[in-house]
C-alpha cells in the first residue's frame, strides 16, 4: 500500500465525516422549520393554552435552538437517539428492528440487481447495436420510466391477484423463518430491481464501451482473444470506478429511497416508520431516521470513492 493511497483514502474518510456533520446541521434546521407544533399535535385541538405551555417546557422546546442542536448531537454520538414524543418509546430500540428489515430488503434487491445489471451491461456491449442490446435497453428504460408505485401495483396485480403466487402485502415479523422472509420480500425486490436495473446496466455499458475504444483493446483483439474475454478481462478492470460509483448510488437508493415501495407493500421498514412520524410531527424520530439515511448515503458513496482510488493502478503502484 503506497503513501499516496493512504493519504487519499484518509482524505475521503475525513471528508465523509465532515459531510455527515453538515448533514446533521441540515437535518436539525429542516426539522425546526417544519410547520406545525408538536405539543398541539400530541394534545389535540381541544388543549388549553396552559397545558400546551407546560408540555412545551417539559419537552425542552423553549430552549435556544443551538443548545438543543448540541445536546441532540452529543446524545446521538453516544447512540442515544432520544425518545419518541408520540409514544414515549426509545427511538434507537424501535428503529433497530425496522432498520434490519430495510437493510434485509435492500440486500436482497442488491444481490439480485447488481450482478444482473452488470451481466446485462456486458451482454449489451458484446452485442452492441444489435437486437439483444436494443432489447435490453428498451426493457430496462421502460421499467425505470414507470413510477415505482404504479410498478408496485402492476406487479401486485399479476403476481398476487392473477397468479396468486404470493400474498399482496409484504409483512415480516421477528418470528418468521428465513424462507418466509424471502417469500415476503419477493415482490418488493422485483419492483426495486426494475427501478435500479436500468441505471446500473446503462452505466456499465457506457463505461465499458468507452474503454473499448482504447488501443489496448485492439492489442487484445490482435492476440486472438474472444470478444467476451476481451470485455471481461481487459475492458472491465478499467471500467470499475464508474461502475462502482453508480452501483453505490443505487445501493444508497435501495436503503434511503424505498419509502414508496415500503408503503405500497406495507413493509415494516424505515420508510414506513419515517412517513408515519412525519405525519405525527414527531421531530426526534424524523431527526433520527434522517441521520441514519444520511449516514448510509455518505458511507456508501465514500466506499465508492475509496474503491475507485484502490482500483487505479497508477495510485496503487506509484513509479
Amino acid at each position, binding site marked *: 500500500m503506497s503513501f499516496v493511497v493512504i493519504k487519499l483514502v484518509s482524505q475521503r474518510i475525513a471528508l465523509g465525516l465532515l459531510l455527515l456533520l453538515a448533514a446533521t446541521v441540515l437535518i436539525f434546521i429542516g426539522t425546526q422549520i417544519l410547520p406545525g407544533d408538536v405539543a398541539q399535535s400530541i394534545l389535540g385541538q381541544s388543549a388549553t393554552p396552559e397545558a400546551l405551555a407546560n408540555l412545551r417546557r417539559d419537552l425542552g422546546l423553549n430552549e435556544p435552538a443551538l443548545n438543543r442542536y448540541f445536546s441532540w448531537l452529543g446524545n446521538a454520538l453516544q447512540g442515544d437517539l432520544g425518545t419518541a414524543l408520540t409514544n414515549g418509546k426509545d427511538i434507537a430500540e424501535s428503529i433497530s428492528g425496522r432498520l434490519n428489515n430495510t437493510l434485509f430488503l435492500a440486500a436482497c434487491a442488491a444481490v439480485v440487481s447488481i450482478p444482473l445489471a452488470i451481466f446485462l451491461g456486458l451482454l449489451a456491449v458484446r452485442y452492441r447495436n444489435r437486437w439483444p442490446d436494443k432489447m435490453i435497453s428498451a426493457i430496462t428504460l421502460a421499467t425505470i420510466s414507470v413510477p415505482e408505485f404504479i410498478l408496485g401495483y402492476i406487479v401486485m396485480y399479476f403476481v398476487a391477484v392473477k397468479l396468486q403466487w404470493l400474498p399482496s402485502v409484504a409483512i415480516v415479523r421477528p418470528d418468521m423463518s428465513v424462507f418466509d422472509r424471502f417469500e415476503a420480500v419477493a415482490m418488493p425486490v422485483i419492483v426495486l430491481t426494475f427501478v435500479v436495473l436500468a441505471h446500473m446496466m446503462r452505466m456499465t455499458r457506457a463505461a465499458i464501451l468507452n474503454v473499448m475504444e482504447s488501443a489496448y483493446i*485492439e492489442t487484445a483483439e490482435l*492476440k486472438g482473444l474472444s470478444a467476451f474475454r476481451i470485455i471481461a478481462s481487459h475492458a472491465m478492470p*478499467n471500467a470499475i470506478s464508474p461502475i462502482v460509483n453508480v452501483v453505490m448510488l443505487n445501493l444508497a437508493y435501495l436503503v434511503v429511497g424505498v419509502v414508496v415501495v415500503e408503503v405500497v407493500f406495507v413493509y415494516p421498514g424505515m420508510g414506513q416508520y419515517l412517513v408515519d412520524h412525519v405525519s405525527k410531527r414527531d421531530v426526534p424520530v424524523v431527526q433520527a431516521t434522517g441521520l441514519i439515511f444520511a449516514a448510509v448515503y455518505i458511507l456508501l458513496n465514500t466506499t465508492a470513492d475509496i474503491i475507485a482510488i484502490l482500483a487505479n493502478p497508477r495510485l496503487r503502484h506509484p*513509479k
Partner: protein
Amino acid sequence: MSELLRVRDLKIGAHVIPPDGDPFDIEIVHGVSFDLKKGQVLGLIGESGAGKSTIGLSALAYGRGGVEITGGEVFINGSDILKDSLGNLRKLRGHVVTYVSQSAAASFNPAKKLMNQVTESCIQHNLCSQSEAEERAVTLFRKLGLPEPETIGDRYPHQVSGGQLQRVMTAMALCPQPDLVVFDEPTTALDVTTQIDVLAAIKEAIRDTGVGALYITHDLAVVAQVSDQIMVLQNGNTVEYGDTEQIINRPAEAYTQALVSIRSAEHAEKLPTDAPVLKVDGISARYPGTKFDVLNDVSLELRPGQTLAIVGESGSGKSTLARTITGLLPQRSGEITFDGRGLTQTLAERSKEDLRELQMIYQMADVAMNPRQTIAMIIGRPLEFYFGLRGSERDKRVRELMDEIELGPEFLSRYPAELSGGQKQRVCIARALAAKPKLIICDEVTSALDPLVADGILKLLLNLQKIEGVSYLFITHDLATVKSIADTIAVMHRGKVVRYGPKSQVLSPPFDDYTDLLLSSVPEMKSGWLEDVIAHRKMESAGN
C-alpha cells in the same frame, strides 16, 4: 527459403460516416502485391494516408475502425486468410502473426501487469504453460536489453519508460514464437537516442529468432537499417518495390527520389547583427506544486530576422522555455527582454503590443484552430483584434496573407477539417503573420507532418523571414530540421543549455558528450549505419 506471406492484388476500403451527410465508401488501397520469405524483413514506407498501416494489419486480416478488406488474397504459409472464419483468424492472430504498434504506452492495458500481458497470447493459444511462457518472456526481456529482466514483468505499464515499453511490446509479439511480426512505426514516438537502442534490439531479435517481419515507417533512414526489401507506397498504390540497397542508392521513381533526397530547405547562416530582439537572461522556472526546476539558469539571445533553434529530447525543457517567454509559466528568477523592453512575468500584465509582436505556432495545427470557423475568419481575427480592420480592408489583407502562404483564395470559405496537415499549418503561419509580429515561437511545427510536407513548410518559413524580417524561436527535437533552418542553435538537456552558439560552430567538432550522442543517433540513409554506431559506442564504453 520457404514463402511466408504472399499478398496479391490487395484492395482495402473504408466506410466513411461524415458528421453531416450520407455515409459513403472509399477505396484506400488499390491492388497491392508483395511477397515475404521466412526470416526476411520487408519495409513498407510512405507518407500518412499511403495505406501502409492498413496493409500491415491485413496480414492479420484485421481492419481498424470502418476499414474493410474488399478484394485480393493474403496467403500465410500457403493458405488464404481472407477466406478464414473469425474462429480460425483468432487462432492466427497472436500466434502465427503478431503486431507491434506505434504507441506502446496506449497499447498496454494500464490495469494489468506487463508479464500477464506478454504471456497472454501463449496461454490463449495453449502454446505452453504459464511458467514456460514466463521463462520465454524473461529470455526475451534480456535479449532486448531491458533492465532487471527477471522482475520487470511485475511492473505496470506506467512504471516503465516509453522506450522500455516499446521493447516489452516487441517481447510480447515474439513470445508466442510467431512466423511473422508486423512492426507498425515502433520507434516513431521515441527520442532519437532511445530510438537507436530500440532499433538495434528489434533488429537483433529478428535475426536471432528468424522471424519474418513487415516493418512500417515513414522514415526511409530507419527502414534502411532493418529491412531486406522496401516497398514505397503513395495513396494506396505501389510506387516502387525492390531490394533495400537499390531503393536507397538507385531509386527509379521520381517520388522515391524525392523521399531519399528530402530536406532540400537550406540557407546560409546569418552573422550576428544589431541588438537582439529577444534576450533571455538566467531564467529558472518550475511548475506549480513541484520542487524541481524544469528550466535551470537558461540564457539566450535572438537577433532580428534570424532563427534561434532550441534542440532537445522530450523532458529537456524546450517547450517550457516557450511557455515562460509567452508568460504562460512565470519564471522564478531571471529576466526576459523583448525588443529592448522587459517582459512581465505573467500574461495578464502584458500590453497588447507585447502580445501582438510575439506570436506562436504549434505542433498540432488542427487543435490550434476553431473547427467551426472558416479559414477567412481564422486569419481575419487577429487583423480585427490588433488593427481594427473591417470589411473589404480586412478581406484584402487576408488575401495577401493567403498569397504569402501559397494557398489559393478558394480555401477561404473552407473549414480546418477540410484541409490537409500541411495546409492547416500554413493557415496557422498566416494567422501568426497577420499580427505583424517581431518574433514567432515555432513549437515543433513540422513534427507531426510528413517529411516532404515538412520540407515545404520550412522553405515557406525561410522565405517569409526574408520578406518580413521576422525572427523565429524554433523548438524541435529533429536535428535535420535544425540544420536547414537555424542561424544560432541551443542544445538543451535536463533544463540546461549544454551547447550554444552559431550553427556552424555548434554542429562542428569537438562536441560535448550529449551533443555527440544526439548527433550520432540521427539515422542516416545508408545500410550498415546502425551497426557502425552501435559498434563505435561499444568500443568507446569499453575504452572508458
